[in-house]
């Protein structure tokens, strides 16, 4: 299982701060596609991802137990 973390507007649109995805080994792109399949109306165009708290690319691998965070553009400071 992979844990998907959601923040800010994305968290409100989906109505949860996390999701679980059943997969042993997949890519960040597949995780994104999974979320888009479940929630076709969300816009992930500007969302960047982090795997285990490090920024990641779509082709990066994730394995069971990993945490994939979906990060909308940040606005701290």
């Amino acid at each position: 299982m992979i844990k998907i973390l959601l923040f800010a507007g994305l968290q409100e649109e989906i109505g949860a701060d996390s999701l679980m995805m059943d997969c042993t080994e997949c890519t960040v792109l597949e995780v994104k596609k999974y979320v888009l399949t479940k929630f076709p109306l969300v816009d992930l165009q500007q969302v960047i991802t982090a795997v285990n708290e490090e920024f990641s690319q779509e082709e990066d691998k994730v394995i069971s137990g990993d945490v994939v965070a979906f990060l909308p553009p940040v606005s701290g400071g």
Partner: protein
Amino acid sequence: MKSHNELFSIIDTRIVVEEIIQQVKSVNAGAVTVFIGTVRELTNGKRTLYLEYQAYESMALKKLTEIGEEIKRKWPATNVAITHRIGKLEISDIAVVIAVSSPHRREAYEANEYAIERIKEIVPIWKKEFWDDGSKWIGNQLQTNSYE
């Protein structure tokens, strides 16, 4: 929540500026620059009632620490401390404090500005603005680029 003794922290209570300054004080310092980011009421003519900040806390702490390491590499003689507040903030509340000490003022100014620019780039913290007629997470939509 993190203790004030840590150089990089995310807290959900009022930031005490003096505490952040104390964290970078050094006998080798000839200057301390302090950046205080506060909640602004008017943004492009729109009146904000209050803000809410949310963080991916563990990663945000990691990224703040990384910014500290970057600064140490670029300006080796400096000391840096950063505290960001999350949760609900009222107008004029302090959202972030960056303190940098260095033997000479130029490095302290430069490193401090570098820190806030990097925070806005890589630290997973988001703010939501609340107005009379609604609210919005900032940074989510293109409109917000004009807020920068």
